[in-house]
């Protein structure tokens, strides 16, 4: 009797069964791993900021302040007491969603991040769309024209985009289109000074202005977007192109594509049903890298264009030793990474039957 029960495969799902299915188990493991990574990131940053970095108090009190004033600031910020106690307090606050007060803005870091997120999003979304479409398209074209002029041209463009420092590209584009030609606005953020931002609906100035039927403001906001989006898209499309090209080259050489040709399918059909789907599987990871870059890595692009997003916030935080802000940004980035790569796993299990089983 007992043996029979034990011999039953654990994967069997019985109606009303209490057993954790393998999927739930896997999900539990993944979530556990994700929490571990986030904890590790938070702790590592805490250690760097509180132990390795120089004491920030000197930056926060007026020069010549007395010892008492310094200690008052210190205890106000939770920077007194043993490092373990500080860590405990930090984790306690964190669990309540309290990331502390930014030294730079004197605002809660949580609300600072939330306020800046729409700006980052407004930049990231168009850049990602352009980057992914352009990257995939160029990669596929290069593979189809392998060894021909188009392939070489794509390779030159790709290598140049990869080797280009984004902050320099931004400055050079500004020099051409703003300073010399005067066709695009300068690095003054999302909207020219003196123009009121549209009422918030989506968080995107362009969309919100259009919703408010204010085409003038929408045009101004869109003009501000052009150059930073180009620079950001430049950093996104090139890795996608490389992977899409090599995936497509491999697919075109594959036995199953040969089979499809051998059974009389049109070239178009072979490419769309057989080659493309396989070729684009590895592109999923590169798209995720692009998303991670657009949401967390575009620190200098936002910096160069005075774009008031999360990246610029982090950049200012580094330059001003604004540690609560930095810690908040790092946590945000870790959450973005963890969620993103969970989505990548999910995407692969949907797109590739070999991963599913």
């Amino acid at each position: 009797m007992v043996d029979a029960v034990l011999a039953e495969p654990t994967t069997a799902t019985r109606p009303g069964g209490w057993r954790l299915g393998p999927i739930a188990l896997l999900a539990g493991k993944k979530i556990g791993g994700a929490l571990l990574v986030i904890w590790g990131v938070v702790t590592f940053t805490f250690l760097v900021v509180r132990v390795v970095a120089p004491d920030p108090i000197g930056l926060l009190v007026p020069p010549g302040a007395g010892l008492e004033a310094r200690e008052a600031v210190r205890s106000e910020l939770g920077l007194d007491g043993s490092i373990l106690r500080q860590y405990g307090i930090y984790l306690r606050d964190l669990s309540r969603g309290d990331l502390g007060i930014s030294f730079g803005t004197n605002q809660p870091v949580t609300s600072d991040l939330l306020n800046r997120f729409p700006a980052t999003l407004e930049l990231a979304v168009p850049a990602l769309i352009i980057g992914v479409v352009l990257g995939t398209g160029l990669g596929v074209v290069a593979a189809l024209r392998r060894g021909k002029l188009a392939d070489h041209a794509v390779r030159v463009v790709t290598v140049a985009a990869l080797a280009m420092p984004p902050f320099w590209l931004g400055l050079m584009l500004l020099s051409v289109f703003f300073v010399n030609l005067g066709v695009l606005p300068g690095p003054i953020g999302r909207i020219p000074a003196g123009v009121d931002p549209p009422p918030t609906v989506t968080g995107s100035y362009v969309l919100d202005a259009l919703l408010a039927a204010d085409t003038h403001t929408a045009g101004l906001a869109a003009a501000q977007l052009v150059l930073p989006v180009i620079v950001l898209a430049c950093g996104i499309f090139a890795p996608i192109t490389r992977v899409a090209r090599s995936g497509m080259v491999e697919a075109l050489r594959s036995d199953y594509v040969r089979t499809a040709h051998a059974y009389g399918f049109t070239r178009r059909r072979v490419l769309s049903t057989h080659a493309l789907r396989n070729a684009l599987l590895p592109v999923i990871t590169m798209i995720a890298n692009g998303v991670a870059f657009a949401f967390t890595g575009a620190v200098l692009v936002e910096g160069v264009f005075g774009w008031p997003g999360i990246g610029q916030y982090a950049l200012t935080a580094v330059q001003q030793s604004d540690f609560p802000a930095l810690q908040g940004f790092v946590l945000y980035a870790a959450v973005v990474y963890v969620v993103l790569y969970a989505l990548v796993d999910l995407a692969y299990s949907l797109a590739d039957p070999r991963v599913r089983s």
Partner: protein
Amino acid sequence: MTIPVPTAPAGSASARRKAGLRRWWRHGPISARLGASLMLLLLVAAIAGQLWTPYDPHTPGVGDPFLAPDARYWFGTDQAGADVFSMTLAATATDVWLTVVAVVLAFVLGGLLGAVAGYWGGWVDWLIMRTTEILQSFPALLLAMLLVAALGNGLGNVIVVVAFVGLPGYLRLIRAEVMARRGWEFADAAIIAGNSGAGVLARHLVPNSLTPLVSYAAINAAWVAIVVSSLGFIGVGIEPGSPEWGSMIASGRDFPDEYWISLFPGVGILLLSTAFYLLGDGTVDRDER
């Protein structure tokens, strides 16, 4: 009267290496040849920049401020009247040196840790891999900025930090490589067949594991060059105004009309990064391109 030129015996290692190099040069991909030429050019520029520059790169006022590029000042002059060409040339060594040393350091340390993780397995592997995962969940550039800001300025700190940030990639690669070759079966076979240990190492193990690593390192170096200059650009780690391409670009940022102050150091970064990229591309197996 002709004196016979002494030639190395046909089988000697140096002759073989030379022949191998020549063959690579003749049949290697164009991109790799271009990368090698660019690299050579940059190395020459780096050395030349230390020995001789048309003007003293550190002295302002060798010309009037904001002179556009001309025959006397090839790359123009900056806001202080320093010669941009001399500064760009002098800065070459900084960027090349920082990039190369950081990559080598990451390669060696990542290699050691990766080999340890792959060879021992078990909890050592678990610990190293989880730590790696955590490090890779940081935006790389920001992690570098954070660490340099915490450690303070200094080129040494920049090297250590950039190497630290790049380390996980090497670690993973070498770990995988070691795990795949755990048995070193082909090495055993070669030793049984009568080869010496060192010979086996040189002829079988190193080439077998090294090619993908060198290719990765070159492509990684292309990225490291950009990270190094980014640190200079935002002025962490590298003192503002020091002969480094990124900080030169930063100093030209306030003078958008005088594009040349930022343009030429940026071209330097572009060339360095491109050179590494092409070299990495060229070492990838021909079939994979």
